[in-house]
């Protein structure tokens, strides 16, 4: 039988290989907070198997599960059969969009990015009181969440870069647009072109991003290949800060939340920990850490489309913070900070910061 959809053409073997063991239920953040098997990786594979068998077609009824996945890849990491569910889901979403079946939030986001500079459609983000587009050694690329939702965190990171006397410039950045490919669409070539032109115009040899998703996009997507071709390196801020000596310390009990986009997706676990141990020797790991880190719930577009479930997932992660009694949770991803901060209960007294933000606070206190 000829495959009807692209996901079957590319991933038929994997979908068939799912043995329905259900082990993914142990690690899936969406299942963990909703306890609804239809949302779990196994449920999604069962549905796709039926689509491949021809028992059902892709249709609107499947939106609720096919578009509700943070693509955190915890399932793929734990699958005994080696099924890469997030890759399959991203392809299915494209098939769904092809037949006109898509979650309105993502359809909306694709439209917004045609006419605006970021996913929120907010064309007047903070200027952070810094010059943009000047010549410099580094470009600091903030990312949509950092610009429009976590401006306080971003400001502190920029303050830190100033303290460290880094020669950087901001640019009139636009959305890296990587997220579109995860939710069924294609990257926005206009936005990609704008970013690359602006970066090249600064003469910078390195781009530092505040957002690990942006750095992944710049490093891995062929649309941004020109950066590599022109010898421009892209680093996430945690990689950039790794070798600095900040000269400050705190004795607070600190823990670290591995963002999926930095950890499982890039294999960067120790760098951020090295920075933290220098400034906060009183460090404790969360129950699920490094490759087993529990997703904060914001990724894969879920925060935009299923905000309540997204925050519920973050709440579940914060229970692990309570469990170890940490006073401060550090991470280095504005999306994580945003979702975790929204989920934190008033009775939970710990603070949530990016590492760079926290270092800046310590340096400010020391002055």
């Amino acid at each position, binding site marked *: 039988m000829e495959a009807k959809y692209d996901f079957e053409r590319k991933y038929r073997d994997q979908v068939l290989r799912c043995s*329905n063991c*259900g*082990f993914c239920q*142990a690690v899936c953040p969406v299942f963990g907070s909703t306890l609804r098997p239809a949302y779990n990786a196994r449920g999604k594979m*069962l*549905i796709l198997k039926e689509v491949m068998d021809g028992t059902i077609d892709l249709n609107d*009824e499947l939106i609720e*599960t096919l578009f509700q996945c943070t693509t955190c890849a915890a399932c793929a990491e734990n699958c005994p*059969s*080696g099924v890469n569910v997030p890759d399959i889901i991203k392809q299915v979403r494209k098939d769904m969009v092809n037949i006109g079946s898509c979650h309105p939030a993502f359809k909306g986001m694709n439209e917004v990015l045609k006419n605006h500079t970021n996913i929120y459609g907010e064309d007047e983000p903070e200027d952070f009181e810094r010059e943009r587009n000047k010549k410099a050694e580094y470009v600091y690329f903030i990312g949509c969440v950092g610009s429009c939702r976590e401006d306080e965190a971003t400001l502190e990171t920029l303050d830190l870069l100033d303290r460290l006397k880094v020669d950087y410039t901001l640019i009139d950045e636009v959305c890296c647009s990587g997220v579109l490919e995860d939710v069924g669409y294609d990257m926005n070539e206009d936005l990609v072109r704008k970013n690359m032109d602006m970066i090249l115009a600064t003469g910078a040899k390195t781009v530092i991003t505040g957002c690990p998703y942006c750095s992944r996009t710049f490093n891995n997507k062929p649309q941004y290949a020109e950066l590599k071709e022109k010898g421009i390196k892209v680093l996430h801020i945690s990689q950039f800060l790794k070798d600095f000596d900040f000269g400050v310390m705190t004795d607070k009990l600190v823990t670290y939340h591995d963002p999926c986009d930095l950890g499982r997706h890039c294999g960067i676990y120790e760098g951020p920990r090295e920075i933290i141990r220098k400034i906060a020797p009183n460090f404790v790991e969360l129950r699920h850490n490094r490759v087993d880190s529990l997703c904060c719930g914001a990724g894969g577009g879920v925060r935009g489309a299923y905000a309540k479930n997204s925050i519920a997932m973050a709440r579940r992660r914060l229970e692990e913070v309570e469990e170890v009694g940490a006073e401060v949770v550090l991470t280095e991803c504005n999306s994580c900070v945003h979702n975790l901060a929204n989920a934190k209960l008033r009775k939970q007294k710990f603070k949530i910061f990016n590492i760079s933000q926290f270092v800046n606070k310590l340096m400010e206190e020391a002055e």
Partner: protein
Amino acid sequence: MDEKSKKALIHIVGEENFTDNLIDLISYSKDASGHSHRPDAAVWPTTTEQISAILKLANKDRFPVVPRGAGTSLAGLAVPEKGGVILDLGRMNKIISVSVTDRLAVVQPGVVYADLERVLAPHGFFFPPDPASGTVATLGGNVATNAGGIKGAKYGTTKDYVLSLQVVLPDGRVMRTGSKCMKSSSGYDLTKLFVGSEGTLGVVTEITLKINPKPSLSSTAMATFEDLEDAGRAVSEIMHSGILPSALEIVDQQTLIAINQNTDLNLPEVEAILIAETDGHTREETQFQLNKVIEIFKKNKAATVKQADTKEEAEALWTARKSAYAVMSRINNSLAVEDLSVPMSKVPNILKTISDLAKKYDLKIPTVGHAGDGNLHPTISFDSTNPDEVKRVEQASAELFEKVIELGGTLTGEHGIGLAKAKFMHLEHDPVAMDVMRSIKKSFDPNNILNPGKMALEVQDGSQI
């Protein structure tokens, strides 16, 4: 199932705890076995009262109800073979209490095994029957199947630890069985009737479990055998040597080949590997026991024997056994996981049978298992899209079960009968026993609404005796 019944269900559990959405019907149509059937609806109850009302309604409107935990059954226990309503107990997941003084834990059926372990650990206690699916499987499911696990040889299975149950009967009445005492001989032992009854006699809504103090130390050793039957003999001898290892597992050649193809563990592809663990509170104790095991390994021509000196080394030795399922599932696109058990003296025989059947039917049957209690998992790996291969798998299974029964064994050590082995029940149980089982079912569930179609409780034409 008609709209009236659906409305009544919504009235009982609330709209947000009822679903007949397509995505849910599909997700609930399978468990971890090869069987599949869609339900008409699913509910997420949170109280015993709701379950009681649902079962009363099911009897009135005559629709099937299928209780479900994590849906990791390997035998089709959770598949709604006759449609009806899935009772997903996952949201009844509270650990109600833990009492170290009374040596018990009271849990709701939806509690995941691993979560209970985590709560017991700081007290120095554990719940010994540890299924391989412990990170996802729920205790309600463990009770339904009388789940075993790697520690079964020394510590027994779930039924040895269930002190008391709260059950909703198929007619909606609620009752308690057993007692919180360590011992009781009062009235019929209804607890043991429900444990392993595969959700066909009642829905368990609260479980009181006996917990054990956890030995703080263990010693681990691994032995390789060029000859499968030597390994089998070693297993038998160890289990009657005077000591009880806390685990004695076997990994066969087919599995080792698959492991090497998928990992860089680089294990010797011998006919069998045995992994033994002994536990206790002092190093003298664990070592004394392990020495006996090692002696027997050597006496039975083990090619190599390695003892782990550190915790890390022990974990490395266990990796072979623990990665078995993963590598088996990559050999082909489908697995038929068997779960036979034989008397200890017959372990070598059944190992040979499996190997012969693999050759006869040209199939790959990697086998691992709890050699220490005679419970093996020959796992047939096959291509489910190839009808000829599927037929050979069925024939091989049938012949395997016949041989198992001939040796005095049982069809299932811990997974249960469900759908997968229903048609072989008559091989193991005589007609009077089957008649008694069917009478018990009829007495508890005259309208056959609770998990119908399982365990060969219905006769061939679908009606009940």
